[in-house]
Each structure stands twice: as C-alpha cells, then as structure tokens.
C-alpha cells in the first residue's frame, strides 16, 4: 500500500514536471500538439454546439442595416450579393487587363481562383474569449484551407479568415479582433463602384475596426460602406463588406490625417452560421475538381 502511494506521488510529480516543460518549450518543439485539436473539438462538439445554438438563439446577432421584415431582408441580401459580384467582376476585369499586359510583357501570373461556398454552423468559441476565435463545423475533410478560406454572413459581410483547420472543425478569427492584423479597404463615398478612398483598418477588440484614411480623403461620412481590397487577403475575400463608417476624426498628433472607425453591420462574434468561401483548386490541378 505505501509503495502504491509513493508511485502515485511520483507519477504526480512527473506529470507536473512534464506540464512545466511543455508550458515553456518553444513552439517549434510542440507543433505536434496541434494535431490534438481535431479530436478534442470533435469530442466537445455535441454539447458545445447545443449550448452555442441555445445562446445564439437567445442572443442572436443583430443587424444594424437590414430591414426587420424577413422578405425585405432577403431582397436586401440578394441586392448586396449582386453588388458584391459586380464589384468583384470589375476588380477581376482590372486584374485581367493587368494580366494581359503582363503576359504581353512575358510574365506569367497565377490563374484566377474560383470560389466554393460551404455553410457551416458556429459550434462555439475558444475557451478563452480574448483571442475571439470562432469554432465552425467544417474542416479539412470539407476542403477548408488555412488563411485561404474566409467566412461570411448574409452573403457579403466578411466575418473573418480561417486561421487553423482540423479534420472536421476550423477556427475563424473575426476581423474585429486585433489579431486579424491590418486590412486595406476602400470607403465608397456615394455608391459601391463609385468614388472611393483607401483606408487601413485593424480590429479594435470592441466590435469595431479603427485605422487611418488616405491623405486628402474628403466627403467621408458615417454610414458609408467599406469594402476589403487587400492583396494580403485571399481572392475569396476581395470586395466583401467590412462594415459602415461609424465616425471620422482628426488623428491625435497628426491633424492632417484622419482616423476612421468602421462598424460591421452584424455583431460578428454572435453569428450562428457562416458561409465559408473556399478557393476551388484551379481546373487541371490534380484532385482539384469542384
């Protein structure tokens, strides 16, 4: 009996030492741990999905711009989708023009990327809300790819980018989180497709994005639409809506520059379901038929 107690004590000591070592080992030695995320998410998914469904039903994401009437809201969503497709088509035409110019100059660029849409439920958040990651029920098995796949709601409103992928689940970091980094965007003055000014935004961790407007920007007012246009983001995210201008003011210490605050139309952390925009592999690539 005393022997067993000693061995248990020893086991406990070894476990604590192992935890200490793992806690302080540099990330390059513990990359294998990420493989456990999938099974653990799968294990907790049934109960966390239920809890998430209940909480998100009781406290749904509220849209600041969509009409409350369901039919009108559907039409508005359809309109926004078409508008986004038009803008994206314009952007692609510009890109193709550039491509033609480059090809004429002998430079071969990557072929265009096609998008596949996949609806996925939000089954929970990270256990620590500070990082703001949302867990969605779609993963590597469904073709979701890290940093190339983005999540949207209502067709065109960007939620965030997929940051890590397990077999059946993925983690999405909302754009309103500072961890999402700087985002280049366009503020449309009158209507999408019209006159626009560039701005650089970053999540402020309070449900908004804050950043700088390009020098000389004029006529920026609350309510104007802001859309992503950033080479660091995948093609699947270009021209998606980031939100609307909430306020514009002079930058502290640099009165000639303006600070802009943009608020997404929805509370991104409260959405119940997202649509993942997955880049389909280019035609001709092995296994890439969608």
């Amino acid at each position: 009996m005393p022997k067993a107690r000693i061995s248990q004590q020893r086991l406990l000591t070894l476990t604590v030492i192992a935890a200490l070592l793992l806690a302080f080992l540099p990330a390059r030695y513990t990359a294998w741990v990420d493989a456990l995320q999938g099974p653990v998410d799968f294990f907790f998914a049934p109960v966390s999905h239920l809890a998430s469904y209940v909480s998100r039903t009781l406290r749904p994401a509220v849209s600041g711009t969509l009409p409350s009437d369901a039919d009108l809201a559907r039409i508005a969503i359809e309109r926004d989708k078409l508008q986004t497709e038009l803008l994206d088509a314009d952007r692609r035409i510009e890109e193709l023009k550039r491509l033609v110019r480059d090809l004429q100059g002998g430079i071969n660029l990557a072929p265009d990327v096609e998008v596949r849409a996949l609806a996925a439920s939000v089954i929970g958040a990270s256990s620590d809300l500070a990082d703001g990651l949302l867990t969605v029920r779609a993963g590597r098995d469904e073709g979701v790819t890290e940093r190339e796949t983005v999540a949207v709601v209502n067709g065109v409103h960007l939620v965030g980018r997929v940051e890590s992928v397990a077999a059946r689940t993925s983690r999405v970091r909302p754009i309103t989180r500072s961890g999402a980094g700087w985002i280049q965007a366009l503020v449309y003055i009158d209507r999408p497709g019209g006159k626009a000014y560039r701005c650089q935004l970053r999540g402020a961790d309070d449900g908004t994005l804050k950043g700088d407007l390009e020098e000389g920007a004029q006529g920026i007012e609350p309510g104007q639409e802001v859309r992503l246009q950033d080479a660091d983001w995948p093609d699947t995210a270009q021209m998606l809506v980031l939100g609307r201008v909430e306020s514009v003011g002079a930058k502290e210490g640099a009165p000639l520059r303006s600070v802009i605050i943009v608020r997404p139309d929805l509370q991104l952390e409260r959405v119940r379901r997202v649509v993942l925009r997955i880049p389909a592999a280019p035609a001709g690539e092995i296994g890439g038929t969608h």
Partner: protein
Amino acid sequence: MNWLVFAIVGWVMFGLELGMADALQLGVSGIAPSFVMILLVVVAASTPRNTAIWAAIAIGLFLDLTHKAPSPAGARPIIVIGPYVLACLMAAYTVLTMRAMVFRRNVLAMAFLSMFGAAMAGVVVTAVYAVRHFYDGQHIEIHALPELGRRLASAVYTGAIAIVVAPALQWLAPLFGFPQAGSRERRRRA
C-alpha cells in the same frame, strides 16, 4: 470520487464554457465566467488532496487543448499544453489550502473559493504567456497588464455565477461520491 461522473459533468461544463461563454461575456470585453473552474473548485473542496490534483490536471489539460495561445497579428495561433494545467493546479492548491477555513455548504463560501481559484489560475496563465512572449514572440504575444485585468474581472464573474452553479454541482455530490460533510460527526454520535 466517481471519475465517470466527473468525466460526464466535466464534458457538460466544457460544452457550456465553449458554447455559452461568449453569450455571457460583458459586452465585447472578453470578461466571461468559467464553468469548469467552478467544477474544479467544487471537486477540490470536497475530495482528498491527490484526487483534487488529478482532477485539476485533467481539467487543465482539456482547457489547454481547447484554447489557442494569444498570437501576434497574422501569425497562426498555436496550442500550448501546460499553462492551464499549471493554472488549475494552482487553483486546486489554493482551494485545498483554504477549504479548512470555510463552511463548504455555504453558497457564498463556494463563490468566494471559485473567485479566488479563478483569480490564481488567471495570474498563472498570464505569467506563463508573458514569460513565453519574451523568447517565443513570433508565436505568442500578450499585453500582460490588460490581460491580467480581464482575467481577474472574469474571476469575479466566475464567483458570481458560482452562486448558481456550485449548489447544482453540490447537489450531485452523492453521484460524485464525495465524502459527505458531517458524516464523521454522525458516525461518532451513532
């Protein structure tokens, strides 16, 4: 302690934590209660020392596996095993030290222990990430003071929620197989 019951209740508590914490958070502050911390405190307050420590290790391990370390902008978030294991061990140790001083059936006592345990856990997690930030900054980035403030506020919130959750867990004490308070007294009287 009946480990099967502990596993089932732990599974449910983790589900609540992952699924509901964001709905219960205060605004967008990230201040939210921890359901599993309340479970840990109830177990640590009612079981022998070694059992409490193993329960803390199990809860801490799953917290580590369901949590991504705070990463710099643009970096791929990673999982780190250890910070929450150490944090839960500290929380369990705190409860083990303090449990003799409180009346465990008192709801406010459990709320106080939950708050204190969660606060100690928050300090340890923040400290581990802050240390790692120095030499592993490309993967882990933390602003220690705001993070500590958020975790301490979350600990207070956890204490408040424990007023409801802890009695429900204590109600399951016979299923858990916790030694019943007062049983020694009753045996002596008999």
